């Protein structure tokens, strides 16, 4: 058998896997990503899963998705819309029709396209016969039936057999993307290492999918994505949460400290706690606290005791930690607070992304309570900014808030693995035992940090606390003028961090018509949109901020090079508000979206064109 399909070489392609939350779509998605990475494609992924663990089967609420964007060109986002959709049931199809391109290939499990499932998905008409699929290449594959037939000889019960359906899909895609099926076999052998029977069954189903694809006429075209250009070296696929955890571990190592994480589980930050919990072999301790407050409080205690300490959370947890962050501010102890932002307020949209904690991070505490605020902008650079947050916290003796978000945390991309030997050493301001010049609030003249004398050290006994302290001596002081001095010092200490951070780099020309401004997790969409439009000849550039407080030194200078400026963020305009307060001469337009979704490149370009074409 076999046929000779037409092979189309594409620069990039977006594949979306969608099914019930129990269908294994996340696994199939990561399997597809790993294979893509293995053959050298650049990639970006994003899982889209429901807040419920197992919502009612077959309903829209239960649809779990995983989008993968691969390419031979540099990939910066998971893609606006999919070229290939795998829909395991009608609900998955219905939920995703608006997220796929015209003419997309849609692979469905025809065994689940019946009246019962249409009803569950809320379809009134049969979508396969009402004309709504016109213009798409629909592949109606009997996935369930063929999987069951294939799995039968392996003696699996039907439920277990049905769980291997995702491998049928995987096999189909190996063929569709002209990939070596051996890679899939290796993935499965590794994944189910301890269950050889399951490996055999899964591999058989994988082959069944591959063979099915090769045989049917519907797939007359296959895709070929060449290895990425302009990238070379060792890579791995990494999510933002994993990168954040590893950045903290790397910082601890470079500071000759062991890591203490005090956290409480919260979506979408939990994976960081889980990751650190399994890194005891690197000396890390994860303290799963009884609540968010105890999470940060234990971290503050561990910091006092001389560890690199961190706490991880999301918006509602950051609110609970506010009081304790104030304590870390006044005691001037190093502490990293990671806020993986999600849709709010309150419980809001736990599994969806948002950038709406910026004001909370900057100002959400009692009193004059300045902290350093950083924001990661890609899944992989969560590593760099977790490292940087730790470095600043330790060297400047201050709490640092690192903002990531649900999109970065769960999304993944290729990460060019660094050598930790090339990371800078971190040098906290430690004190020698019995240093008789030590005073708790004596400061380093350059950074204005106090020094870190650690319990157990001889001759350095002292007391810290939440009450205002006298300058230098650290004795409790209610003196009016001393309070002013201390408030100023705490502010100046944070302001001085500006001398230790890089300047803002503009992507594109440093002068022009329109400066697009972004911060944090929107980078991928913004840079794609700006680069596309530059190719079209527009005078547009991007300034993307990772350092929020303090802002880079050259920010005013960058702003001055452009006639118009637009601040794009996944909130109602918090960064725009912040910039207006800092740079009052400048006008800032806004582009905001608060739908629990990242920006689409298409909507960004549309907005930028509207501004640039209006003359």
């Amino acid at each position, binding site marked *: 058998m076999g046929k000779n399909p037409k092979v189309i070489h594409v620069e990039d392609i977006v594949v979306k896997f969608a099914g019930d939350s129990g269908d294994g779509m996340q696994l199939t998605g990561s399997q597809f990503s790993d294979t893509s990475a293995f053959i050298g494609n650049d990639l970006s992924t994003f899982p889209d899963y429901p807040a419920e663990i197992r919502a009612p089967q077959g309903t829209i609420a239960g649809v779990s998705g995983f989008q993968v964007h691969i390419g031979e060109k540099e990939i910066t986002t998971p893609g606006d819309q999919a070229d290939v959709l795998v829909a395991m049931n009608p609900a998955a199809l219905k939920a995703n029709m608006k997220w796929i391109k015209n003419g997309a290939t849609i692979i469905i499990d025809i065994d689940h396209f019946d009246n019962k499932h249409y009803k569950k998905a809320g379809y009134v008409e049969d979508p396969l016969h009402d004309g709504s699929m016109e213009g798409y290449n629909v592949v109606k594959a009997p996935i369930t039936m063929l999987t069951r037939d294939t799995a039968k000889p392996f003696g699996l019960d039907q439920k277990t057999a049905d769980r291997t359906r995702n491998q049928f899909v995987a096999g189909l895609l190996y063929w569709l993307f002209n990939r070596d099926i051996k890679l899939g076999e290796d993935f499965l052998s590794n994944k189910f290492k301890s269950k050889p029977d399951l490996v055999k069954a899964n591999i058989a189903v994988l082959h069944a999918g591959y063979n099915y694809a090769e045989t049917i006429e519907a797939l007359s075209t296959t895709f070929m994505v060449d290895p990425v250009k302009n990238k070379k070296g*060792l890579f791995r696929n990494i999510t933002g949460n994993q990168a954040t955890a590893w950045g903290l571990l790397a910082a601890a190592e470079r500071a000759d400290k062991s890591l203490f994480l005090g956290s409480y589980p919260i979506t979408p930050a939990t994976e960081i706690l889980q990751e650190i919990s399994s890194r005891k072999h690197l000396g890390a301790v994860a303290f799963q606290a009884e609540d968010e407050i105890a999470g940060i409080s234990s971290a503050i205690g561990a910091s006092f005791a001389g560890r690199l300490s961190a706490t991880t959370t999301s918006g509602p947890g950051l609110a609970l930690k506010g009081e304790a962050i104030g304590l870390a501010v006044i005691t001037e102890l190093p502490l990293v607070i990671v806020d993986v932002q999600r849709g709010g307020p309150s419980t809001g949209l736990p599994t969806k992304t948002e950038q709406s904690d910026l004001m909370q991070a900057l100002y959400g505490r009692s009193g004059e309570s300045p902290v350093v605020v950083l924001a990661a902008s890609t899944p992989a650079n969560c590593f760099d900014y977790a490292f940087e947050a730790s470095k600043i916290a330790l060297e400047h003796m201050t709490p640092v808030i690192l903002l990531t978000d649900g999109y970065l945390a769960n999304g993944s991309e290729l990460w060019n693995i660094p050598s930790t030997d090339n990371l800078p050493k971190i040098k906290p301001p430690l004190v020698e035992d019995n240093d008789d010049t030590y005073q708790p609030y004596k400061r380093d003249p350059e950074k204005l940090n106090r020094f870190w004398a650690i319990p157990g050290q001889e001759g350095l006994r002292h007391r810290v606390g939440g009450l205002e302290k006298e300058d230098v001596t650290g004795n409790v002081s209610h003196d009016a003028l001393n309070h002013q001095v201390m408030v100023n010092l705490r502010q100046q200490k944070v302001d001085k961090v500006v001398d230790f951070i890089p300047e803002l780099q503009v992507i594109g020309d440093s002068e022009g018509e329109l400066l697009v401004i972004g911060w944090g997790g929107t980078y991928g969409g913004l840079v794609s949109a700006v680069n596309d439009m530059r190719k079209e000849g527009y005078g547009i550039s991007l300034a993307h901020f990772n350092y929020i407080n303090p802002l880079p030194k050259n920010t005013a200078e960058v702003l001055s090079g452009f006639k118009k400026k637009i601040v794009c963020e996944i909130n109602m305009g918090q960064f725009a508000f912040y910039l207006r307060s800092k740079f009052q001469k400048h006008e800032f337009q806004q582009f905001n979206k608060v739908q629990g979704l990242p920006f689409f490149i298409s909507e960004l370009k549309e907005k930028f064109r509207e501004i640039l074409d209006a003359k």
Partner: protein
Amino acid sequence: MSEKIIETGTLSRKDFKLDTPVKWCAGCGAHAVLASIQGTIPETGVRKEDVVFVSGIGCSSRFPYYIDTYGFHSLHGRATAIASGIKTANPNLSVWVITGDGDSMAIGGNHFIHIIRRNINVNIILFNNKIYGLTKGQYSPTTPKGSITKTSPEGTIENSFQPGELAMGAQGTFFARVVDTDPKMMKDVLLKAAQHKGTSVVEVLLNCVIFANEVHKEITGKEVRDDHQVYLKHGEPMIFGKNRDKGIRYNCNKMEVVTIGEDGITEDDILVHDATNPDDSTHYNLVRMGLPEFPVAMGVVRAAESTVFESLMHDQVTNAQKHSKIKTVNDLINSGNVFRIDQKS
């Protein structure tokens, strides 16, 4: 992990005194506790530099400013959580928490039960004056029902907590009760608390001269104390009273007070205190005893063995370090699915 014990023969109470003025009211019971603790620490054999006092907020929580050790005056209710971090980060430290009935029973109730549940080796000294002192006289979770305070002008309508019941309910391994007017008892008990492996809770019945003066008078008053307190000592019968003729015994699974020499009762009928019994049901009954039916139990009610959180944590760390092939972050980031991309040009 074992505590570092070194020769400390030269340390005495005055080594732990600071020059800073102590700002508690004259006549406050806290002065006596400070003196007792300053006198006890030299006997624990721990290096001065290895001692850390952590407190929350409230009158009692000013304590770390008055003792010459490392100290952390923290947030209302959070001292136990901060202490958990300190002790887990460095198990070699001798960590003491100073807290009050508002700090530990109200705003810090959650952290209080969880440090006990984990059995982190920290000594919690709970100054129980049954009132909010620093905010000037509102009722606390331990204020007896019906008390008139600034926020209960018609009397409180809330049931009150017994700290000991909470400690037992949270699977506490050490609970003791002392009074601020008995320095010898305080020192004996504090030393035992310091030596216990696990979370020790010492409830100090403390007098607030301003807002709850003589709140414990019925227990601590010179005239009544012998009849109204039973000082529990491990291995000894629970005998009390001016004439040492009263005792506690079980009668059909119910505790009762009996008089030795009456109705054929002899000393042999009196319950012998077993503080180390893993079963805490008697300890639970003992902390619940109250006037007028019973004397109030003093001394170490419970001192049972159990696993200690930070020891197990560090055992896991050591074990993982010994067995994992991944020794550095470089090893970690290069483990698993790593791909080499080579440009074919």
